[in-house]
């Protein structure tokens, strides 16, 4: 879902990648080895340590292994121990900001980006991470202003294009949040074009195509989404994000067997809880309840696998529990905990949904109002809003939001698209025709 977009943005601007992903991992391993040798030769090589940190970060992106982020942090700390008061230290500080983002320590990320900017290095890159942190903290205006600073009058043409790519791909997300889905798509198309034109690493191009596909899917343009996911896979075969995206398209096309295969492939590469939950939902749809249960167990296992996972998957787990009517108190507690550090619209949405599932309708209404306040056209938000207002007895609002969810994408979710249709039918029925169960359709 779009909730992932921002964390995915972190993929941009990393070190070089090459297709396919496995080959990219090998290239990163080689780079790490050579940088390790470099700092071994010269223990005072601050630039070497900074680059080593960045290489570990890249490795972390590829493997989603928390240990790589710890190694990145150590190398970057070492670099900053050697040099911290010079424009040259801005790179290491920016990478520290990226570590903060990856670990969902958004305030730390912002502070590091600000420290990097305070050095006045002439490189506007830290603005990107500052914007990312602000967006995750719900300050979209601040994020937009930060992204608008991604310009460098001193850079080469390639550097300028690279910055325009970073700016446009991020602004695309902000446009989406602001409700301008077509504007978001247009910006992302431009970013894809720039990525190809400037011969960016295959993984970056694949990510851009994938991101465009996500926006198409959210806009209900499933065919365009499918094409873009396939383009992403063509650029970077077995790219786990594109595999999962394509699986989502196949599920919406009711091609469940293909969807299962694709999700399995994605999970084999990077086991994100979100993918396991989606795969479980398909199994459930197919009546394979044991398989579904296994996937749901996997979601929890991944979510609690490490301290870092507990930190970064709070919101995913909260949503998963709420979606599946499991551990509802924990779902709410996780959503509330997440809101302490992350106040973007999707955290408000998950809080709304968890509150709703816990029967806290007023709290849910307040939270969903925050989620909707930017004007975002996301079927999931509208579905949640519709269900909350239905249970609050506000039928006109409930109908409006459920209709909007289905109008955007009639197959926006494997289970909830149907639930939205049913709820809308109930709302459209005259009161007398409702069964007792329907009339008391409490969460």
């Amino acid at each position, binding site marked *: 879902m779009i909730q992932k977009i921002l964390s995915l943005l972190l993929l941009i601007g990393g070190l070089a990648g090459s297709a396919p992903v496995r080959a990219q991992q090998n290239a990163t391993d080689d780079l790490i080895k050579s940088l390790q040798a470099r700092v071994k030769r010269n223990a005072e090589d601050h630039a070497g340590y900074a680059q080593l940190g960045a290489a570990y970060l890249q490795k972390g992106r590829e493997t989603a292994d928390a240990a790589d982020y710890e190694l990145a942090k150590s190398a970057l700390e070492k670099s900053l121990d050697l*040099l911290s*008061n010079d424009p*040259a230290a801005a790179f290491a500080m920016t990478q520290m900001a990226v570590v903060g983002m990856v670990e969902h320590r958004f305030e730390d990320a912002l502070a590091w980006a600000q420290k990097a900017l305070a050095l*006045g290095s*002439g490189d506007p890159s830290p603005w990107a991470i500052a914007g990312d942190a602000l967006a995750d903290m719900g300050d979209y205006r601040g994020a937009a202003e930060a992204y608008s600073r991604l310009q460098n*009058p001193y850079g080469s043409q390639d550097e300028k294009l690279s910055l325009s790519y970073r700016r446009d791909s991020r602004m695309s997300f902000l446009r989406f949040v602001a409700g301008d889905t077509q504007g978001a798509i247009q910006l992302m198309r431009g970013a894809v074009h720039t990525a190809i034109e400037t011969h960016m690493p295959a993984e970056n191009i694949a990510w851009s195509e994938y991101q465009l596909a996500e926006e198409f899917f959210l806009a209900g343009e499933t065919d365009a989404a499918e094409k873009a996911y396939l383009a992403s896979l063509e650029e970077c075969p077995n790219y786990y994000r594109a595999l999962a995206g394509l699986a989502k398209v196949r599920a919406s096309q009711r091609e469940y067997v293909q969807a299962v295969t694709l999700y399995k492939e994605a999970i084999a590469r990077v086991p994100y809880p979100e993918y396991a939950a989606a795969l479980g939902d398909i199994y459930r749809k197919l009546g394979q309840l044991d398989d579904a249960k296994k996937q749901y167990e996997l979601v929890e296992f991944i979510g609690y696998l490490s301290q870092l996972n507990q930190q970064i998957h709070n919101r995913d787990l909260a949503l998963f529990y709420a979606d599946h009517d499991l551990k509802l108190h924990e779902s709410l507690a996780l959503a509330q905990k997440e809101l302490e550090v992350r106040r973007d619209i999707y955290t408000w949405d998950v809080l709304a949904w968890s509150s709703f599932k816990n029967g806290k309708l007023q709290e849910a209404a307040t939270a969903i109002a925050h989620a909707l306040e930017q004007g975002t056209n996301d079927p999931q938000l509208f579905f949640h809003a519709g269900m909350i207002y239905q249970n609050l007895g506000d039928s006109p609002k409930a109908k409006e939001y459920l209709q909007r969810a289905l109008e955007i994408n009639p197959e926006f979710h494997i289970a909830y698209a149907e639930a939205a249709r049913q709820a809308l039918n109930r709302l459209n029925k005259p009161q007398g025709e409702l069964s007792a169960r329907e009339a008391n359709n409490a969460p």
Partner: protein
Amino acid sequence: MKMLGLAVLSLLVAPIVYAQAPLGTATPAQQKIAWAEAAIKAHPERNQPYNDLAVAFVQRVRETADPSYYLQAETFVQKSLQITPDNLEGQKARIMILLGRGEFGQARVLAKALNKNTPDDVLVYGFIADADIALGDYEDADIAAQWMLDMRPGNVPGLLRGAALRRLYGDTHGAAEFLSQSYQQIAPTQTEDLAWTLTQMADLQLSTGDIDGAEKLLHSALQQFPGYYAILEDLARVQTARQHYSESVELLRQRNLKFPTAASRYALAEALERAGENTEAGLAYTDFATTARARINGSDNANRELIFYYLGFGHDLAEALRIAQLEISRRHDVSTLDAYAWALCGNGRYEEAQKQVAAALAVGIREARIFYHAGVIAAKLHDSASAVRYFNQSVELNPSSESAVAAREALQKLLPRSAAAHGAK
């Protein structure tokens, strides 16, 4: 002037984002101090947090004008160097302290040595440029600043040094352009840096007589960093340029409530004199002279102000020259050359004065006061044509300056004589 105006406009409309400071109302230096102290608590065995703390205290001096922070900075540099002898950042912090205290010669020696070992460090070049500019070695400063900009195009420390040099070379528009570029790159959290840069910009505007433009910039700077002493000093200059002397006095009184420098005491004394508050002016001059004389042999002295004091209110021309000779033995920057020239002129040594002021002007500096001094010296040497030219330059450059008023009077006296001389030829 048009270009300068455009650059200023771009400063005023530059976007400011997330102005809120992470640590509430703490200043940037205070935030850095808090971060560094936390880092020391977490890792007392590492040298770097001590360096960061030292640098933050140096930055705090610029925020407050309170030189006592240098003592703390020095303590933490020593601590850092105890942990890791000769570590790069520790040495850099030490040079920053030396520069802040006006120990330019020593700072330059250390920076040059450090630069030899770490030729890829941008800030070390900046320190060399700072020391060179203060000592008047502009050629060497130029090379260092150019290295900074070549190594990292568009870096703010490099642009600021470049702006200072461009101004010294008389390229006011170029200096404004660099300051504008710097301002647009400074992080919005660095409120003191932003205010300082705006103040520099305002200073530039004032030097060309654009009083309104300067005032706008200064008010903008006040929003960034309220109560900043550097802004109050320049706002006082704005009021002086408007001949609003009482307002100028008020601003300087306000400025001197906290950590007055010898120079700011002198500015207040001058303002009081202009406002006709002669008794208070006398007291203020005495206060200044006492403070400044105590540091006459020190590095962080106010000898240039002291020279002008003895040439004016202090009425001791010989003492003015003695101090000027002392200062010129240490540095040859344009301000010291000008002060020395003026002291020589005051003592009737016009030819020597002419040599010194010519050396100052040869750098390219365009300052109404220096042009005026050059005019007076030329007139004393009976070089009416040069005198007229210099006086005209002074008036044209900054019609609202005090020097311009004096230059106009001098021109009135000179012009008939000059015309007659021209006719005789």
